[in-house]
C-alpha cells in the first residue's frame, strides 16, 4: 500500500506580468507576460525540474514560488497555505523552510563576509539556536558539503567556483529548509566539478529528506537529477511528465525539438536534426493561440487562434498541444543511443575502480 504523495507546493494559475515602458494612459502600458497561468504541484521528497530556454519564465517562476517577487495573479500554496496572501512579516518563518541556490557562486556570496559569517547569518536572521550552537552547526554544514571547519575564517575569493557553490549550498541548508530551489545550480561550473556538485545535491537530498525544484536549461542535467520535468516556453508550461516518460516519449513538438537540438557526446549519433526555424518571439507580444505556433513544424490553422490547454491528465503526463496524438514522434535520443565501445567501457570501469580507491585515500 502506498499513500498518495503529499504535495509540498501547489501552484495554480500563477501569473507575473512586468510593466515596461510608459504610457500616457494609466493601465495601458505594455507588459511582459513572463509567467502566464502556470499550474503544477511539487510532491514531498521529489526532485522536480523546470526546463526551458532563456526568456521562458523559469527563473521568474522560481522567484514567485519563494515570493521574492509578488505575483500578478494565481496562487502558490506551501503546505496548503497561500503565500501570496501572507503578510511580509509572517513570510520570514516560511522562508526558513524554503531556500534557494543561485547560479553564479561568484555573485551570490558577499565578498566581505567570511564563510563562517555567511553560514551563520541565516541562523541569526531566523533566530535559530545560541551563538555556540550556530558555530557548531556552521562547522557541521561545512563538513556536510565536503569542506571543512577550518575554512570558516576564509573569504569567498579564496575558493574555486566549485567550492563556492558548495558554500552556497551550505548557506541554503543553514536554516534547515524542507524545500530547496536551485536556479541553474550547476550551470556555471566546469564539467568535472559539475558532476561533483550534482552528486552532492543528490546525497544531501537523500540524507536530509529535501524536496528539490531545479531550474535548468540543460536537458542532460535535468534527466540525471529529476523525478519529474516541466517544460516551459514563453511563460507557459507546455509539457509536464515523469522524467522517464518525457525523455523516452516526448509529446509536445517543442519538447521534441529541444531534445533533438542537444548535441550528444557520441560522433556516431550525428543525425539530421529537426532544426527549429527562427528565434523565440518576444514575450512583449507573444503569438496568439499556441505560443509555439510560429516555430512549430506541425502547425495548423487551429493553433494560430485557439490556445491549447494542458491535457489529457495534467498530473500524470500533461501536454498543451491540440494535435499531440497525431504528431509522429521523431527518433528519440534513447533510440539513437548506442552502447559505448568495449575498450572505452573497460577503461571507464578501471577509472572508476581506481577513483574509488582514491576517494578512500587522504586528499593530497
Amino acid at each position: 500500500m502506498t499513500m498518495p504523495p503529499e504535495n509540498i507546493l501547489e501552484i495554480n494559475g500563477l501569473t507575473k506580468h512586468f510593466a515596461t515602458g510608459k504610457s500616457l494612459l494609466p493601465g495601458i502600458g505594455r507588459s511582459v507576460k513572463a509567467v502566464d497561468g502556470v499550474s503544477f504541484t511539487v510532491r514531498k521528497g521529489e526532485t522536480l525540474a523546470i526546463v526551458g530556454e532563456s526568456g521562458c519564465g523559469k527563473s521568474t517562476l522560481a522567484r514567485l514560488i519563494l515570493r521574492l517577487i509578488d505575483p500578478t495573479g494565481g496562487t502558490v500554496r506551501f503546505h496548503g497555505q497561500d503565500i501570496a496572501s501572507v503578510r511580509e512579516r509572517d513570510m520570514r518563518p516560511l522562508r526558513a523552510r524554503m531556500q534557494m541556490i543561485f547560479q553564479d557562486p561568484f555573485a551570490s556570496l558577499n565578498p566581505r563576509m567570511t564563510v563562517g559569517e555567511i553560514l551563520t547569518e541565516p541562523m541569526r536572521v531566523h533566530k535559530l539556536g545560541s551563538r555556540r550552537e550556530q558555530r557548531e552547526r556552521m562547522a557541521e554544514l561545512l563538513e556536510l558539503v565536503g569542506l571543512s571547519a577550518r575554512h570558516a575564517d576564509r573569504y569567498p575569493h579564496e575558493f574555486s567556483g566549485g567550492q563556492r557553490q558548495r558554500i552556497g549550498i551550505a548557506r541554503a541548508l543553514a536554516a534547515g529548509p524542507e524545500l530547496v530551489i536551485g536556479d541553474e545550480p550547476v550551470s556555471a561550473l566546469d564539467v568535472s566539478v559539475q558532476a561533483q556538485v550534482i552528486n552532492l545535491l543528490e546525497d544531501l537530498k537523500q540524507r536530509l529528506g529535501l524536496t528539490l525544484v531545479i531550474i535548468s536549461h540543460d536537458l542532460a542535467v535535468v534527466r540525471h537529477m529529476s523525478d519529474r520535468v516541466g517544460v516551459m516556453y514563453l511563460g507557459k508550461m507546455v509539457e509536464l511528465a515523469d522524467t522517464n516518460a518525457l525523455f523516452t516519449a516526448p509529446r509536445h513538438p517543442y519538447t521534441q525539438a529541444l531534445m533533438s537540438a542537444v548535441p550528444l557526446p557520441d560522433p556516431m549519433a550525428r543525425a539530421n536534426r529537426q532544426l527549429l526555424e527562427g528565434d523565440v518571439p518576444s514575450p512583449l507580444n507573444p503569438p496568439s493561440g499556441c505560443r509555439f505556433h510560429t516555430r512549430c513544424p506541425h502547425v495548423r490553422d487551429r493553433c494560430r487562434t485557439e490556445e491549447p490547454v494542458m491535457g489529457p491528465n495534467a498530473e500524470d503526463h500533461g501536454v498543451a498541444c491540440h494535435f499531440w496524438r497525431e504528431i509522429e514522434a521523431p527518433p528519440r535520443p534513447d533510440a539513437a543511443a548506442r552502447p559505448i565501445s568495449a575498450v572505452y567501457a573497460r577503461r571507464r570501469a578501471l577509472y572508476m575502480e581506481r577513483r574509488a580507491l582514491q576517494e578512500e585515500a587522504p586528499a593530497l
Partner: protein
Amino acid sequence: MAPSPILARASARSDANTNPALAAPVAEIRDLQVGFRTDEGGFNVLDGVSFTVRTGRTLCLVGESGCGKSVTALSIMGLLAPNAIVGHGEILLDGTNLLDLSRKELNERRGDRMAMIFQEPMTSLNPVLTIGDQIVEGIRRHRPVGRAEAERHAVEMLKRVRIPAPEQRMGDYPHQLSGGMRQRVMIAMALANDPRLLIADEPTTALDVTIQAQILDLIKTLQDETGTAVLLITHDLGVVAEVGDDVAVMYAGRIVEQASVTDLFADPQHPYTLGLLSSIPRLDSEIGRLPTIRGSVPAPADMPSGCRFSTRCPFADDHCRTEEPPLADLSPGHAVACWKAPLEVRAA
C-alpha cells in the same frame, strides 16, 4: 550559392572531409609556450602546444576553464594581452610564422586570411555602427573595392548566413538583433574575405540550445561551401562530437590527447579524457551516480612537476609526479601524453 566576384581566392569545395590525407595544412602550431607576467611572478599558461588545422576540416580544442584554449586562439590571432610573453614556438599560417611578422603585416592577415568569432557577439560588435557599416568596413580594409560593391558583397554575406531580409538588416544596429542573429552577423563578417582559417571561440556557449543547433549547422554548411579550416574552441564534448573532425584535449596548458573525433570517443586513452567523458550527464540514457574527477585544476602559480594531471589522476605514481610524459603516438593519428597509456596494459 555562387560566391560573389570580389572573392579573389576561389573557394572550391574540398575533398578534405572524405580524405584527410588530401587536406593541406593551413595553420600549424609548433611547441608554443606562452606565459604571463604578474605581480606574483611569471608562469606558463601554454606549455609546448602543437597541432595542425587543415583545409576543410574542423579541429576542436576542448578543455575546462583555464586550460589555455582561449589563450591559444588569441596567440594565433596576435591578440594576447601586453603582459603575455611568447617563450618559444611557431605559429605558421600557410607556411609563414606569424610570430616573425610586423604589426602591419599581422593586421593585413587578421580579418582577411584568418578571422575569429567570439562567445559573446554583443561585446564584439560595435554598438554605435550599423551592421552593414561594420561588414563593409571589414571588406574595404582588405579589398580595393568601392563602397557600393562592398555593400553588395555585405548583403550577399548576410544572405549566406541566412539572415532574412538582408537589405533591411544592413541598417540595423546590433542591439536590434537577437543573440542568434548577432552571431550570424559575426560569422558573416568573419567570412566576408574568405579566410583560410576561421577560429571560433565558444561560438554557441551564450546561445540557447535550439539556436546553438542552427549556428553549428550554419558553420558546417559554410565550411563545406568554402573549404575554410576551422579551429573550434569549446568546453562541450557534445559540440565536439557533433561538428569536429579532429580533437585535441587540453589540460593545464598542455595537450594531453589528440585524435580523430571518432577515435577519441571510441578509444579514449588519457585518464583526464576518461574522467571528462564519464562525468557528463547523458541525455540519451540513465547512468546512475556520476563518476567524477577528484579536486579541481591547480592554479597556474602552483602547477605540479611531472604530469600536470598527476595531482588528480587515480593512476598516478611517483614517475608521473616527477617526469613529464611526452605527447606520443599510440597509433597513427592518435597521440597521448600519459605514462600509463594504454591503461589496461600499463595500469591494470
